């Protein structure tokens, strides 16, 4: 399935936040079973204004300010889905989704399985996630690994404005539950539709090469998603000066995982670095590195490296820049790939 953005270019949203709002609006207009619910999503339009105007346009029954209770929001969404609606739930911030985990893990993720397919859960859970916006405690968690570790959930994280639109439409259209991770610090990033926005977006589960490399002797693949994609693109630009030709793969979807696109890239470049801001130990990078190693072992000229947040609770805002993986840390990892490759090349002669 592909999702058309619509030909009206004048109305194309300019920021990721606007693109998400537009996706919700268009989905609600296209399908009366789509309902938005959450804290402050109605009158206020959400604390990030993503749902702005929806209550006005579609009424409070379709864009509903709920009582303040995440377990209740997701639990009632389960019941709504049982009765044929398509709830789109907003969690106000990453760490505030935790009260809903019981519903998510015990019911949302496995209802299809429990009922032998009789009761699908077409629920989209939108989670503004990640750091870099100076938020106080509990406003910056990268919680993707909890979701990834739960079979039955799709986990999606857009990195561009166009993907934010297309992937959210796809998530809402999906008959399975989708955890839709919205990188907060990209909410205000501007669209560059001409460069990266095809009029059609691919289904959930497809990675994309954001920046191709030629696959020469000093090339490597940076594998990333969400807020770390722009970091990788910047690092790739900077690495040119060092003679590195870096390919950047934007996963877009963590579950399902697009082994094909990732492995095709790594086979070409022979090296890979996974970059994300979630903690490294037990983090998404470990899974990705293992998959790449299993599939591309004979093509690898260096171990797959990970650049991740430190293994600490997300730090207070004044210290977050020391925690978040930035361009320099990515470049350091790339430099370590070279050492490995020299050793490999040296041993070959």
């Amino acid at each position: 399935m592909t999702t058309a953005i619509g030909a009206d270019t004048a109305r194309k949203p300019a920021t990721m936040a606007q693109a998400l709002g537009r996706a919700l609006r268009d989905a609600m207009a296209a399908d009366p079973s789509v309902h938005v619910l959450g804290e402050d999503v109605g009158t206020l339009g959400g604390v990030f204004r993503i749902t702005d105007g929806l209550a006005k346009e579609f009424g409070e029954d379709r864009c509903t300010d709920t009582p303040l209770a995440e377990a209740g929001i997701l639990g009632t969404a389960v019941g709504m889905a049982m009765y044929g609606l398509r709830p789109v739930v907003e969690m106000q911030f990453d760490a505030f989704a935790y009260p809903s985990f019981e519903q998510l893990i015990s019911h949302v993720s496995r209802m299809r399985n429990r009922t032998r397919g009789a009761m699908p859960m077409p629920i989209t859970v939108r989670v503004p996630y990640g750091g870099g916006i100076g938020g106080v405690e509990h406003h910056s968690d990268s919680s993707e690994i909890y979701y990834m570790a739960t079979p039955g959930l799709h986990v999606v994280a857009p990195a561009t404005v166009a993907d934010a639109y297309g992937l959210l439409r796809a998530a809402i259209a999906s008959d399975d539950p989708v955890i839709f991770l919205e990188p907060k610090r990209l909410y205000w990033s501007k669209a560059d539709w001409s460069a990266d926005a095809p009029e059609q977006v691919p289904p959930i589960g497809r990675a994309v090469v954001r920046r191709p490399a030629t696959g020469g002797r000093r090339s490597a693949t940076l594998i990333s998603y969400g807020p770390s994609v722009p970091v990788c693109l910047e690092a790739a630009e900077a690495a040119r000066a060092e003679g590195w030709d870096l390919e950047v793969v934007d996963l877009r979807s963590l579950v399902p995982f697009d082994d094909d696109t990732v492995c095709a890239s790594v086979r070409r470049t022979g090296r890979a670095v996974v970059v994300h801001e979630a903690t490294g130990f037990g983090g998404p990078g470990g899974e990705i590195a293992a998959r790449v190693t299993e599939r591309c072992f004979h093509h690898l000229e260096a171990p797959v490296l990970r650049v991740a947040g430190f293994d600490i609770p997300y730090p207070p805002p004044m210290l977050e820049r020391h925690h978040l993986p930035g361009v320099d840390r990515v470049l350091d990892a790339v430099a370590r790939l070279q050492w490995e490759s020299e050793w490999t090349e040296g041993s070959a002669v």
Partner: protein
Amino acid sequence: MTVLEQPGAYRPTPPPGWQPRVEAGPLLPDAEPYRLLGTAAAAGISPDLLTRLHRELVRGRRYNTQATALTRQGRLAVYPSSTGQEACQVAAGLVLEDRDWLFPSYRDTLAAVVRGLDPVDALTLLRGDWHSGYDPHAHRVAPLCTPLATQLPHAVGLAHAARLKGDDVVALALVGDGGTSEGDFHEALNFAAVWHAPVVFLVQNNGFAISVPLAKQTAAPSLAHKAVGYGMPGRLVDGNDVAAVHQVLAEAVRRARGGGGPTLVEAVTYRIEAHTNADDATRYRPDSEVEAWRAHDPIALLEDAMRDRRLLDDEGVQAARESAERLAADLRTRMHQDAVLDPMELFEHVYADRTSQLREQAAQLRAELDAEAGDSGKGE
């Protein structure tokens, strides 16, 4: 008329052996919030207490306006103001004994300061230098809690533990009207009642959970009514009447300390400022509503009552204001100094002993910081 519409329709034949376990009557809150200031009963309040409450109210207001100003100057990342709610904050901060514990939420910095916390330490979380800027044991104030209602079961557990140890300790837990919808609120109240724990729950009903008004939060006659279902008394009080809040809390604390179990107090107040400096309150409420509540200002209510009893004159007001200005000046000066932070502390308190992974990561950051320092050194 259906059976549901007929009160008593169920009554004639209860099942054998059925007994009401608790008389619900005494648990039920009054229909109207309890007022004390301006009533005859106010004559019973000690002048010393009133003077103390007044001073803290005036200082509290100033603390709020100063902290809000600091957000505009970029010195504070965010501040959820308690302007308008100072009576609840002051009463909560003053009502406990030293050995008791306070469990505040992010909006309750003032209660913590009134309890004795350093005003700058209380703002550390909101400035962004550390998650909790104080040692909770030093003043028996739990860390300001951001996830809603999650501090409530902690208060119950602490009070329960103290009682198990034979200590004479009460816990006072603060929560907003929105927070009462969370599952943790329910679980905390239920545990407290079943365990008969010495806890007091104070709901500051300030009308809104960010943009959501109380009517969309609950269909209960009042939040205090929620107590009855758990088997504890619910008390409804005018949250802008500092004497009333203090009295109701003091009674609940006394009851808890005496082994009478938990109480739920709902203080009806209003959030005069926006949710935080990042919020635009004009989107969800009219100015006229705010103005109506301004006319019911906690400081004015107390000053009028005290002047009536000749417990306050212009001089007294002046003295309180001066004290407030000193507090604000001190806060300003110290908050205008850049926080001195050591990034290496990131690895310090994750575990009692650092894991080998954290040691490695600390070494990595050390090297980065040294390189940074080296670079900037060269530049000079």
